[in-house]
């Protein structure tokens, strides 16, 4: 019963996103496209913070790994977007695994600090190899290189549906993961890692798996962003983009499948509206973070789940 309700809820959300493309005005059409890509990044982040209980402040490095792996190969070697996407996601997966092998040796706040530092080192590496990356200015991918089977990635309808497909894939992956036995172990690690260890689990491996999957989704989102919007720049590796993921997930509800997209949507339009009346959108972001921790530590969906929708995964 709960299972059906939950399937209907998420299926309904995806159907709504599909239908929205027919009614959204062009500006919001493009915004939704980019929000779905960024929400995929959010889902990746959520697997780690929401379901495994690991607070990373360096996820922009995985997003950037996908962004650069896909972007640079398209720019320099002219490979096709599908291979570039696969390459980007794979690069992020490998990178996240490598980072995990070191960073997961720490726990709690040290993990946060270490991920943040690694991300900053990646940001500096991008600047350091400016001959290749063009540093902060970044690279523009030509429209000609961004074609899949004759369809241009600059075509809004095509792009919207690709973003939707990416988001759906991430959502389904996340949904299956948390319903699986592995997902149960991850949640148990979030609740009490020591106990899970004494139940005989090699918790390090599970955390590594969570981080790798999280990096994979972040990187897939990064690669898609590069290919769909044609720009690759160091800004996306900055700490700000790690904080954004945290903000979306916390706002939407950590440990809820749809939380990241709700958070990303709300945050986008909150900044959009406030920037019309004030230039201080950062205060809005900051206040949102503080107020969330004080009054809604579980985020929107998390609070809903607590109050009524107990079946929400």
């Amino acid at each position: 019963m709960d299972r059906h309700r939950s399937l209907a809820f998420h299926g309904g959300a995806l159907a709504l996103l599909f239908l929205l493309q027919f009614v959204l005005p062009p500006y919001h059409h493009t915004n939704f496209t980019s929000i779905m890509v960024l929400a995929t990044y959010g889902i990746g982040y959520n697997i780690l913070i929401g379901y495994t209980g690991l607070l990373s402040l360096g996820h922009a490095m995985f997003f950037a790994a996908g962004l650069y792996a896909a972007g640079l190969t398209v720019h320099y070697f002219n490979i096709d977007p599908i291979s570039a996407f696969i390459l980007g996601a794979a690069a992020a997966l490998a990178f996240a695994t490598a980072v995990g092998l070191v960073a997961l040796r720490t726990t709690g706040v040290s993990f946060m600090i270490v991920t943040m530092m690694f991300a900053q080192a990646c940001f500096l590496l991008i600047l350091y190899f400016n001959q290749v990356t063009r540093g902060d200015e970044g690279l523009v991918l030509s429209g000609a290189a961004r074609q899949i089977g004759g369809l241009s990635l600059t075509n809004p309808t095509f792009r919207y549906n690709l973003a939707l497909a990416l988001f759906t894939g991430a959502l389904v992956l996340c949904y299956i993961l948390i319903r699986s036995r592995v997902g149960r172990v991850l949640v148990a690690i979030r609740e009490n890692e020591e106990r899970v260890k004494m139940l005989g689990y090699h918790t390090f491996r599970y955390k590594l798996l969570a981080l790798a999957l999280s990096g994979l989704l972040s990187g897939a989102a990064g690669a898609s962003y590069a290919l769909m919007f044609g720009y690759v720049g160091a800004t996306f590796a900055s700490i700000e983009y790690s904080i954004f993921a945290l903000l979306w997930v916390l706002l939407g509800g950590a440990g809820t499948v749809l939380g990241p997209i709700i958070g990303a949507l709300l945050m986008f339009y909150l900044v959009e509206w406030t920037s019309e009346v004030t230039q201080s959108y950062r205060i809005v972001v900051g206040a949102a973070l503080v107020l969330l921790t004080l009054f809604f530590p579980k985020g929107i969906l998390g609070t809903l789940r607590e109050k009524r929708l107990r079946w929400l995964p």
Partner: protein
Amino acid sequence: MSLGPHLLLALMEGTVAAFVLALTALGLTLVFGVMRIVNVAHGEFFMLGAVFAWAFAHLVGNPALGFLVAVIASPIVVGGAALVIDRAILRRFNYQPEATIVATIGLLYIIQQLVLIFYGPDARSVEAPINFRVQLPWFGYSGYKLVVAGIAALLLLATWYGIAKTKLGLVMRATQFDSETAQAFGIPVDRVYAAVFALGAMLAAIAGVLIVPIKQAYYLMGLDPLLLSFIVVIIGGLGSLRGAIIAAFVIGISDGVISVFFSPNLSKILATLLVALVLIFRPEGLFGGKAR
């Protein structure tokens, strides 16, 4: 310039940077040690120290007197702000570590933007209280930088004395060791936390005041000291005061030397790699105890 003097200059620059870094990182690690929380807005306290130093120096007018006022008043104001933050926010969710991280990220944004609104996007300088140039046979050097190193050394000593020898320090150490037992023995843990949080902020603020005649006050200046402090506390062992100070010198001086001979970006990348190595061989940091 030949290698010898070049290295000397690098060492001098690195040492001055290390003293300031040690003060900043000490504040961060003190807060972690006693309260078990990480203050991501720590760099903003550093920045606020610098910005208020500009404001006070500007109000007074006379450089030497203005700086003197700034050294005393700026940390007090910043410490006061930290107290307000502690009461209004951190205490409400009982210093829960993850919530603290998120809330202090929020504070980082809020503080930066408030400074941008009321102080502006400009970098503003404060005149050094003493202005002389030390002429070495090979190059000239700012006398004020040597003064900064001296003051920072005194402050580090004073902090050590405060923690090791005074009653307040004893209470702090007791709370750090076991806050529940401390509470049971009648130590007002709540107030100790507030005091420690304020003290941590004041240490960062003083570092900001000292640096402002060298580097100017600028609303985005907090990120670098924050990241460097993070590197320092991880290498030194979270919560270890001795580790933080030793690591500050390792990082400060090596950063000075590497960035003189190679690239500053490279030196920061190398520092991060060093952290990775430390974690592989000693996850608890070079001087950290095993996590309890």
